């Protein structure tokens, strides 16, 4: 099992108040999965993704990637894991503005001292090809469209050969058609290279592509689903519990088929 999220919670301070963005979230993700974390805005999707991506630390619970429990890692070790094991695709692309497309894709590889510069350039060229941007290699982000920038970000995430790629609402800033193309590309990569994809979304088009889903609401998991043809087969389903009742009732698993709405 590649990713294990155990009873994870995240609390933010906003002014004087504490806000629980995630509560008692548990999740197992296998290799080669193409998992969607679904939910309305404010449900905690991005927070969960940030925790898995080691960009943030949980307030409670444990996360283990590839058997390594991340809560005992030093910041430098976490940085190394981010460099080698995880690829992150952000909603706002987050490309370095002064670098060209190929320099952006190359950037995480600069830390890989075992690669020669020729090997680096070869990888960069390969992945820019994979995402169809070989012709735009020298362009800066401000010379590329939204879809092209997202593809650069995908190439950058792939180039380090990570075990796990996380994508935070990857189609949110793209038009419908481009979004569809990006998703099909990611699906293809998942099938051919076997890289695990976990992305957060509230876009139904994205959910159509996923073969597993986790639904979040108010920071809790309310549904776990596995693709069943065009439908979903839900492993369990519940409403989020009120705060007073939290902790007295465990997760209840209800088997059965529920057709997707």
């Amino acid at each position, binding site marked *: 099992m590649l990713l294990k999220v155990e009873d994870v919670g995240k609390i933010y301070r906003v002014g004087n108040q504490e806000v629980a963005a995630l509560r008692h979230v548990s999740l197992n993700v296998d290799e080669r999965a193409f998992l969607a974390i679904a939910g309305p805005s404010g449900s905690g999707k991005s927070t969960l993704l940030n925790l898995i991506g080691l960009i943030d630390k949980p307030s409670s619970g444990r996360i283990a990637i590839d058997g390594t429990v991340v809560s005992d890692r030093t910041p430098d070790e976490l940085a190394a894991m981010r*460099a080698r094991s995880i690829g992150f695709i952000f909603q706002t692309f987050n490309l370095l*503005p002064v670098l060209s497309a190929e320099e952006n894709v190359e950037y995480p590889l600069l830390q890989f001292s075992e690669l020669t510069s020729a090997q680096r350039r070869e990888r960069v060229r390969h992945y820019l090809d994979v995402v169809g941007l070989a012709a735009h290699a020298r362009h800066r982000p401000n010379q590329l469209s939204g879809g092209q920038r997202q593809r650069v970000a995908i190439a950058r995430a792939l180039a380090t050969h990570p075990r796990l790629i996380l994508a935070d609402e990857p189609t949110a800033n793209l038009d419908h058609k481009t979004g569809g193309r990006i998703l099909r590309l990611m699906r293809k990569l998942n099938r051919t290279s076997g890289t695990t994809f976990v992305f957060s979304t509230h876009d139904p088009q994205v959910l159509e592509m996923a073969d597993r889903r986790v639904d979040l609401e108010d920071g809790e998991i309310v549904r776990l689903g596995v693709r069943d043809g065009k439908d979903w087969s839900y492993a369990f389903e519940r409403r989020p519990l009120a705060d007073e009742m939290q902790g007295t009732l465990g997760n209840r698993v209800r088997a059965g088929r529920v057709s997707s709405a």
Partner: protein
Amino acid sequence: MLEIALRNVRRQRARTGLTLAAIAIGVTSLLLAGGFVEDLLHQLRESTIRSGLGHMQIYRQGQYASGGHRPSDYLIDNPEQVERAVDRLPDVVAHAKRLNFSGLISNGRGERPMIAEGVEPILEARIGSAISMIAGSGLSDRDGFGVIVGEGLAKAMQLKVGDPVNLVVSTREGAMNTLDFSVAGIFRSFSKEYDARAVRVPLKAAQELMVTPAVNAVVVLLGHTDSGDAARTDLAARLPAGYEIKTWPELADFYRGTEALYRRQFAVLQIIILVMVLLGVANSVNMSLHERTAEFGIMRALGRTSRYVFRLAVLETVLLGIIGGALGVALGVILALGISAIGIPMPPPPNSDVGFTGAIRIVPTLLVAAFALGVVASAGAALLPARHLARLPLVEALRRGV
């Protein structure tokens, strides 16, 4: 990391440009202010030297300590020996001999005590003078028995240019001697006490009056004040025992106090300028790094450590400091040359009637100091913002868009 830092600096034109401007202007300001101060002190020094002190004076051993009360006790019997030694020095512009004595000056109507100096008129003119003529002309070699008298003395004896006077002295052997002179001019110095008693005559006349070929002092003017110390050591080695050499700082009592006062005043002003420069640079650097919070956050999200981000931010700023410092020095030099060419009109310094033209002096140590300050200020300014960038929780750093 250096390559990446250079690349970042090169490619962010606007941001880099602003920070460079802040640093360069700061360095230029330091240079111009410092150069102006250097010039003022330089001019003060030179005007002191050229007020008749020369760069050094050679006496018979013991004359200086005696305070000049009995100049006939400390005569240099062999002035040619001294002059030959002086002539061997590499940077001599002029040297002149002086003979000091005292006695009475009388003109038919009355007599007054006087202190007198026998000088070589043309050579003395090259060495410079602290007196200005208010009537008549100065001494000349042609006029063997002309005398110039101080303003106070002339007034007390009602002397006019052209009047005959009589100088009476006591020679070294103790005999009395007297010679007739004619008033060639009346002078004024900065000291009224001096003007009430002082006269000057040509050296040859003085030597005839005192019946001696000796002199009291040989005054030396060099081409460059900086070679003064070396010249003194050199001369001391060439002269036999029995002489003493006094350099101008030892002779100009007022100079040291004045210079100290000026330097302190200027230092305070320069510190204020320095603080303003530091604030300007710090502000620019802080703004620049702050704007790039998301950019450095992305680097960390992609796996760079906090330490790396800190070092990169500081390195980029140090590079800017070096480039900006160099630009500031270049600009400072160009402006200094330009301003010096135009000149800054200045009022007369102490002990002078004449104003002078101020300039901006370019001194190598000042150039290096201003450049170094630019680099150090930049590095220092980067420390806190870079630390903030490195420590900011990643989620927050990424929250701001690029």
